[in-house]
């Protein structure tokens, strides 16, 4: 499954799973991630300090005073990992409010794409997404793939502040801003659900790589009354 292994500096291994960004390649990445994570937890591999899965790469960081590139590469070469992603993934439903004040870019998006607002929302609501990775800011999930007809570039000028909970789309992906943050994605709604809870020390991120995510619409009233 790994196409190429190289070093990223002297304290990380860079595993390349292929050029494309698709669910198949990404679930290979996640299978390796889950397997290695378990081995690290069970203390079967020494010195690994971080595992970072992304669309088509897995980066393994390690403590150079304990292990090195050659040792970890050898472990990777003898590991037998099959695509086991299904068993670890969960299904998550996310409430989304798409009223004007939350869907900051919906109207301009509708004009740009020449697709009605309702159609854009339907295409988003009717799809079960796959979580490729989380990161950039704590807990932010990168979901995909969105319907071909609503794929757009990032905003020309990124916003200095995107409100917390905003749901944005760009290219083939959809994400959720877990914190107020700068950002250039096209915002089509907002969720009141806590996607990242820093007080939950054991399980702060609601959505994990490999999970299946879908959205359901709520009214402004339901949004305002949302209570976790």
């Amino acid at each position, binding site marked *: 499954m790994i196409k190429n292994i190289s070093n990223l500096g002297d*304290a*990380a291994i860079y595993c390349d799973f292929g050029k494309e960004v698709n669910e198949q390649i990404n679930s290979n990445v996640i299978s390796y991630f889950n397997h290695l994570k378990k081995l690290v937890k069970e203390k079967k591999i020494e010195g690994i*300090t971080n595992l*970072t899965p992304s669309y088509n790469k897995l980066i393994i*960081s390690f403590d*150079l005073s304990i292990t090195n590139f050659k040792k970890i590469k050898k472990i990777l070469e003898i590991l037998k990992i099959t695509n086991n992603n299904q068993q670890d993934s969960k299904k998550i439903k996310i409430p989304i409010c798409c009223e004007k004040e939350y869907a900051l870019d919906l109207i301009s998006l509708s004009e740009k794409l020449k697709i009605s607002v309702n159609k854009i929302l339907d295409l988003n609501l009717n799809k079960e997404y796959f979580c490729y990775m*989380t990161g*950039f800011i*704590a807990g932010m999930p990168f979901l995909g793939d969105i319907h071909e007809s609503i794929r757009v570039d990032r905003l020309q000028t990124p916003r200095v502040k995107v409100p917390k909970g905003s749901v944005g789309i760009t290219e083939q992906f959809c994400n959720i801003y877990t914190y107020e943050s700068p950002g250039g994605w096209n915002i089509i709604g907002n969720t009141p659900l806590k996607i990242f809870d820093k007080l939950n020390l054991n399980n702060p991120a609601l959505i994990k790589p490999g999970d299946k995510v879908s959205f359901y619409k709520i009214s402004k009233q339901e949004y305002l009354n949302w209570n976790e």
Partner: protein
Amino acid sequence: MSDTYFEILRPGTNTTIQDKGRSHLYHIGITISGAMDQRIFILSNALVNNDLNEGALEFAYQGPLLKLKNGGVNFAITGNVNFNILRGNSTIEEGKCYQNYLLKNEDQIDIISTKNSVFGYLAIEGGFEIEKVWDSYSINTKAKIGPNDGEKFSAGEKIYIKKSKVENFMEKKIDYKDSLEKSIRVTKGTNFNYFSEEAKNKFFKDEYLVTNLSDRMGMRLEGSKLDNIVSSNIKSEGLVKGVVQVPADGNPIILFSDHGSIGGYPKIAVVITADHDKAAQLIPGSKLKFKEVNLDEAEELFKSYFNETKNYIEQIK
């Protein structure tokens, strides 16, 4: 819990608590954080008989003015730092780095500034009474993660201290010497071949200026623009401390402790672990030169770095 604390009379530019950093959280978007200069952070703890990963105060440029209340502490400051100890009876004692001092009730530590460097550390015997967040003391002010709600310390705050008095104070000293090697050594990055032949040559030949846009996340450099001949964006992927990434404007950025967990700019190089501390201490306006080493050399250089640190610790055992 002890009632001994430091009252912050002046917080300094960017005073936080740091340790070795966080691990196993990159995958949910939480970066490593941790001391920018790991070696002198470790030495600050060694000087006061602490576990080497105990949390220490990290300050940048101007440090804090601290007044000790309800107790005594054994403390040490590491770095290239100007500081005074103001004794209760109003005498001023000039402080020296890399040695420990006994601070008495109502005494003050005035950390005036770092000299020709950015970061310094203040460790106290027994450590601070601060709760770890995700198994680390490190504060990441950009992501608002860590103790103190992820904020730097501010005036009027109290930082509690675990031990209220010092028993058997013994003087300790390290004869610390800055590294003689001035260049910043790197291995080739995973996108090295995205850059033109000319850019690759310039990257190693020319000097780069450290700009003001430098902090715990990263250091922006200015110099010969690095021409990208493949693509100035890559599919977002994981990052590590030391990565030298080059956005579309052609100016390299070195990533440090509070860098984002993933990113999409091509990586021309990665600073070797042995040179992270040295790179982090470069002040805006200084010039740096990159030097290429291969992976074997980088690993050897790390061994020397690691052994040097160990030797410093041996000096005070």
